[in-house]
């Protein structure tokens, strides 16, 4: 048993942690961890970033508060929060 970092990327509809989540990727601290689109997924684990915080996740990166670059032609869907949980983890 050792303390390891679990990482959760959650994109939300706005910079408000209580706005609905749009996408999710969970990275477990395992050598053979694979993060990919899951065609059997029945939805996201958390409806809001706040709900994840209530469940013990800690926000380590907040989305940029500046407005998007109006000259940029590329778009990112959602505002990304990065969260962590430090837990005892069995390899």
């Amino acid at each position, binding site marked *: 048993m050792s303390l390891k970092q679990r990482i959760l*990327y959650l*994109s939300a*509809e*706005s910079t408000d942690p209580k706005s*609905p*989540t*749009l*996408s*999710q*990727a*969970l990275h477990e601290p395992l050598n053979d961890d*694979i*993060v*990919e*689109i*899951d*065609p*059997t*997924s029945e*939805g*996201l684990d958390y409806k809001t970033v706040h709900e994840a915080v209530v469940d013990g996740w800690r926000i380590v990166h907040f989305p940029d508060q500046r*407005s*998007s670059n109006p000259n940029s*032609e*590329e*778009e*990112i*869907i*959602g*505002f*990304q929060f990065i969260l962590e949980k430090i837990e005892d983890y069995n390899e």
Partner: protein
Amino acid sequence: MNKIDQYLLNDDQVADFVINGYHIVQTSFPSKFHDEIYSKLNNLSSNPGDKINIAVSELDEIYDHPSLRGPLQSLLGEGYSIAEHRHCHKNHPGTRSQRWHQDNLNIPALMDGHTRSPDHIKSVLVMYYPQEVKSNMGPTALIPGSHLFRSAPDRNASQGNFRDQKIATLKEGSLLILHYDIWHAGTANTSNKIRYMVKYLFERKKESEKPTWNHSSSNKAHILDRLERDEAATVQRSLIHKRNFLRTKMWNNIAGKGSLEYKYHDKWAGSWPEPKM
């Protein structure tokens, strides 16, 4: 009425494509026909690349069927062309998921100045599946409405599952028509069966002077309302106006004389909202 006319899309189906970026066609070929194609694909000793239609000639029958030509004429106009590039995706058991992406523009078949077209339908991908595709067989995943945006693949690499993603679990013999710019990905095949998908590309050759689908001008207000209100995959509020503007522009670019007038109309008059208790 010729054979293609009976398969033309109607206004709502074209609006669905403009809003979501995809359309599914169920072919009427017997199951045995698709099984034969699957078997021939499975017996290929190497990848024939663009010549997949010569190696498995039945594929051209699928792609030339009026049930596909009707929707293609509806979306790409009359006289659309088939690109030289074709590809057979062989998805073995154990294949991992791709990342979200828009297909590459740098392929020889599209070197004639092809760019992203978030306000037009200039080319479509047509994916044919000779076998049923269940959720564990590497179905194609897509984000409805994403064809209206240019993706930044390096920056969206950390986005795994989208809440509103669509997973194309399909019956055998289905055809999935995609706007060329839609964000999509092949997913993991955790089954014990190879999943084939054959991809053809079709391109618009000229601008349409009028709708090339089963259009009625009496639907204009209804269609404009749908383009302004219908949800696809949820996006942030700051993108909604851009998205809705591009939808209307796309419709107008393919409709010619059937264009919609983008003008103010009062969409708020009517019943007061119910009190929230």
